[in-house]
């Protein structure tokens, strides 16, 4: 089980989600992807994608003003 961090701060939507989807394909089941992002729309788009894909979200937090982190586990 590995944890991979994807840094997307500075990239605007939809790129954080696009990059997260790409990164997810390189992981194996049980691995966790930590996505750092600062695009507001992704606070809706990323957890929605995780839920629709059946990936559990093990952490979702606000790191600071307009800065978030979400941890999605590959199921």
């Amino acid at each position, binding site marked *: 089980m590995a944890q991979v961090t994807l840094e997307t701060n500075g990239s605007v*939507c939809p790129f954080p989600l696009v990059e997260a989807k790409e990164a997810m394909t390189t992981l194996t089941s049980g691995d966790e992807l930590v996505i750092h992002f600062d695009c507001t729309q992704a606070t809706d788009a990323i957890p929605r994608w995780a839920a629709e894909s059946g990936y559990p979200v093990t952490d979702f937090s606000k790191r600071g003003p307009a800065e978030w982190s979400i941890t999605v586990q590959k199921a």
Partner: protein
Amino acid sequence: MLISGLLVGLALGFVMQRGRFCVTGAFRDVWVTRNTRWLTAFLVVVAVQSVGIFALDAAGVITLQAEAFPWLATIVGGFIFGFAIVLAGGCATGTYYRAGEGLVGSWLALISYALFAAIMKTGPLTGFNTSMRSVTVEQSNFYSVLGISPWLLVAVLVAAVALAVRHHLAKPKFAMAALPASKTGLAHLLFEKPWNAFATAVVIGLIATVAWPLSWATGREDGLGITTPSSKLVSYLVTGDAELVDWGVYLVIGILLGSFIAAKGSGEFRVRVPDAATAVKSLGGGALMGIGAALAGGCTIGNAMVQTAQFTFQGWTALVFMILGTGVAAKLTIMNRRPAPAAAPRIPVGV
């Protein structure tokens, strides 16, 4: 009362920021993720406003006018605008509200968009714009050509949109991860809680409806609009001619302030500087947005949301070509984008 423009703008900017209401995203999702959730929300705005404005028209509060349909400029401009909003990372209103969130890329897109709208409307490209928009057909809207009551079209639109919303709400419920709450009561509702897309759309539809009589009362006989007011704002800033500052100019300033208040209040404001490539895309996208919107006679708001609610050919033609332009740009810049250099080989995944 020009100040009502500022208040409507404040409300609109606030609701769009909190609701994450992004028309570019709505059009883009149709192509990139084959999802119509946000497009449906967008059409909810059109439907709500359509009911509202035909009721206001029937009550004699406003009088909807029929103008010739500049088909060539609408097709070309709509496509250019749709393409441009993907580059700029937001449509006209989206750019205003992201500028209010502190995204410097959106500041660049906004300045470029407003400048090029002014160049097309009152500057050196006025002749080009006017000649493009002079290619017209006399028929202006669906109900007069069909010889039916507009209310029949309102009913069809409302029914179709209601079915689409039901389709999206009927999807199996899944638990979506949420941020831990740190506020309570009204503060939680206004500055923290994620807003439902369709509820947000109804609120925007009501704001768009109220905009009509308020703007009308000041002599500006129109609903929400972004491009002409942005162009007038630029002209005012360089000429000092206060006559140019109408209800619409107050509206766009209000959107910027409203989104800033929403973002600041919810801890979502931060000055964010883009990388060089994004900065160039924002500037170029903004310029094309100004050109496209001026040609088409409006942006995603003025055309795709306000003209459509009146069932004009211009509005629906612009909407279709904006979505097509968005599709081409999404294909080129998102779906076919070069993979990151260090990325491992990928297998295709279903969405």
